[in-house]
């Protein structure tokens, strides 16, 4: 019982998901994936495009996120993201749309290394989904 904690995902439009029987969450943090278990130290980190995996009593769920920031404190995990898609009912067209705009961005000459890195990551993840 005691291995569970609560997670809340919010995007600007609404509270996307809220669960309190989560055992582990794996998030694509900027410097690599982080798995968060109960009683993790308080942490703030931001995300690169990737897959969030949520393991709970009721099963495993995966989401694609474009970006975001996470805060873990007192066994509450908050994930803030501007775009999140559930991998279960994902729309292929939507993915290719994001992919296309990312490719366009990447071809622009005035992007810095960090942006380029993030876009590369994004494309890689998107390709793996599609």
């Amino acid at each position: 019982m005691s291995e569970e904690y609560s997670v809340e995902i919010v995007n600007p439009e609404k509270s996307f998901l809220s669960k309190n029987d989560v055992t582990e969450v794996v998030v694509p943090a900027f410097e690599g994936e982080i798995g968060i278990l109960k009683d993790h130290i308080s942490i703030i980190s931001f995300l690169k495009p990737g897959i969030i995996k949520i393991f709970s009593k009721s099963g495993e769920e995966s989401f694609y996120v474009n970006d975001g920031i996470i805060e873990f404190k007192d066994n509450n995990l908050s994930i803030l993201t501007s775009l999140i898609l559930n991998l279960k009912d994902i729309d292929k067209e939507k993915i290719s749309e994001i992919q296309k705009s990312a490719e366009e961005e990447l071809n622009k000459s005035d992007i810095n290394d960090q942006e380029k890195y993030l876009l590369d990551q994004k494309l890689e993840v998107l390709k793996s989904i599609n």
Partner: protein
Amino acid sequence: MASLDDLKKRISSVKSTQKITKAMKMVAAAKLRRAQESAEKGRPYSDKMNNIILNLSNGISDIDNAPKLLSGTGEDKVHLCVVMTSDRGLCGGFNTNIIKKAKLYFQKILDEGKTLKIITVGTKGYDQLKRLYGDNIIQRISFKESKNINYFDADKVGKIVIEKFEKKEFDVCAIFYNQFKNVITQIPQEQQIIPLKTSEKNENSSEDNYEFEPEEDEILSNLLPKNISTQIFKAMLENSASEQGSRMSAMDNATRNAGEMVDKLTIEYNRSRQAAITKELIEIISGAESL
């Protein structure tokens, strides 16, 4: 006095105006509910964002190296004002209230000899400001096409603001919008977003020691641009709820006024009809008497 026919025409025209205002009120009421809902749903995001930024900025020890978006450029010469209004009229004092608030601010800035730049979001704001401050308006944005308020529109505005900041085109940025209190009351707000005001800093200065990955300042410099979009998005949500609320009460008033007018005109119509009848009767009676 107007003839009976004229009065009849006026009554029917006021009645059809009343029908329109009534319908607009209903539409606004329905839209208001939706706008209010989405404003409420959007709140957790911006609240959480604020919290995280507060925690982060507390953790920053070296103020001099803090990101410029947080600490400002150190100067206070050029002010950028983002004035957010609606795209449609017939919403009472909604736009005028924002503009009034903004104009006060503009005047203060100009009186102090600072440079003023304006971005208008929504066509009504541009219409009201172009005469007095036409030269100060550097950009006008309108989201007439998008049906619902969405984050990506807000993000676009946010990106424009940040781009201009990075090009050092301004030092201070403020946004103007109406905060939704209830259907009758909307409070015009002026909110400074660059540099970020962290006035509540000491209120809940938690002693939490966060682990940061990567470093605080790197997170912060990534987060602050997002926060600007978030603040703008929040303002847009508040604004749209306010707009519908304001329209609803304006149309409610208009409907009531039209009702009063119809009553008044009907009385006048009846009176003049009665007067005409009486006049005819007198004519008949006096005609009969003279025989």
